[in-house]
């Protein structure tokens, strides 16, 4: 019987790896993929907690998180396409027109 802690630690590891990815990568699409990984780690937390708590609220929440992730993906990728049309790159180091 796998304990709840194993699932929670696994999702904490995935969440942290996602955070490291967001803060260290330069390519905007890869940053977005790391954000999706963070959201998936949260989904795992919700479903594991839902099973061990014995109610379905967590799984319904995951349902909505997936919907939100899909909506954000659509809008985020459209923003990247619009940015790319003007700048020919999606490197976040190129997001530098506005500084101090």
């Amino acid at each position, binding site marked *: 019987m796998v304990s709840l802690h194993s699932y929670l630690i696994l999702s904490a590891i995935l969440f942290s790896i996602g955070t490291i990815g967001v803060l260290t990568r330069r390519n905007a699409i890869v940053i977005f993929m790391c954000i999706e990984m*963070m959201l998936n780690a949260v989904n795992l937390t919700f479903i594991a907690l839902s099973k061990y708590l014995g109610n379905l609220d*967590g799984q319904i929440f995951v349902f909505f998180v997936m919907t939100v992730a899909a909506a954000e993906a659509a809008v985020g990728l459209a923003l990247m396409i*619009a940015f790319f049309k003007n700048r020919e790159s999606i490197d976040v180091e190129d997001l530098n*027109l506005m500084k101090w």
Partner: protein
Amino acid sequence: METIAIPAINMSVIAPEMILSVVAMALLLINVFVKNEQKGYLGYLSIAGILVTLYSLTIGWGAPQDGFSGSVVQDNFAIFFKGIFLVSAAMSILITDQYLQREGCNQGEVYPLMLFATVGMMLMASGTDLMTIFLGLEVLSVSLYVLAGFNRGSIRSNEAGLKYFLLGAFSTGFLLYGMALTYGATGTTKVVKIAAAAQSGMVSSNLMLVAGMLLMATGFAFKVAAAPFHMWTPDVYEGAPTPITAFMSVGPKAAGFAAFLRVLLVALPVFKAEWSSLLWVLAVLTMTVGNITALYQQNIKRMLAYSSIAHAGYILVGFTAGNAVGTSGILFYMLSYAFMNIGAFAVIILVGKKGEENNNLADYAGFGYKHPALGVAMCVFLFSLAGIPPAAGFVGKFYLFSGAIQAGYIWLAIIGVLNSAASVYYYLRVMIYMYFKEPTEDFNWVRLSPAFIICLIIAIAGVMIPGVVPGTILELAQKAILM
């Protein structure tokens, strides 16, 4: 296969959101048949919709009701904040058309998107389930990502949209993780039931709940741009189209504070000591960072962005106090902040022209003599932002700091007053440029359309009247707090 018993649906709880959503969807349809030059009419239609929604709000005042199995509630707190959102949306819509036509990105979808963002904000204010708060936040955020990047031809706008998207999605991850851990510790996502569960000693000493609270606080701090989580916010404010910046500087902050207040005051009052100390640090950092960096800005949009960070810091002072005076001060301050900020942005839009936004302070030289009425309006807004009596900003700050003193946070109030005094420098610097420097331009492109006049009159009224006679609004705010 048994049938599902659909519960009784209480429509009047979500009546404002429903009306506004229907108006937004109708605008999407009408947009197809409206010619490019006449998109301004969509703006007037959306304002009509907002007025109808405002009327439906006033009906519900004083009679709290909840619905949808405790997912939403329509109490005074929610109604007050919804009023703030609707007023700020209406004022932002009034100043949108001229700017977008000037920049050449006059697509009609901007109005439905602003209305959808307002619907999201309203759901955040009245949500009593973590799910409703989260979904309202996402509706707001998705609409704003698009609106920030709306001016497709401008690289700055593209950059602002992309930065806002990445930052917003990142912070949503933190907020969600906090909600997950809170759910794990208490077994429910309804705010009232979280409070009930957290009262019991076993749960309140559960580290999972503390971790959840910290992560949720981090997520909310990102959303309201508190330091040290404000990283890309000034860039977003500078790059987005100016009416959208006006909308963004008021609405989402107010919505974030409303949701944060509800979560902290209703769900987690058992941790009051812990989150008060946390918010103390956040408030001091935010005020100081916002004010100090604003001192160095030459670009007025960026300066107002940093100043809005500082204002979020003042509101966090009210949060830290956590008592009745502080909380009613937060509500009063948010309302007056909506008027003064959008008014200031309206003047900024008027000073600019196509191809040259004239956002640097030096471009304002001598403006006060060329357009005296606009100069006086800008002075009123600047006085209010700086917290100089008799404008509403002063009354709001007075209440926030009194609340802090009453709760025993003397040093916090002192730091707040010092910061407020420091901020006078960069607000008055604009006035100095407007009145004491030689004009280098003619400013003959400034075109005061009726929409702008209405917006400026509403803004000035909203700043001066609560400043001189704050009694009515203060009473409303006191009836609206959650305690």
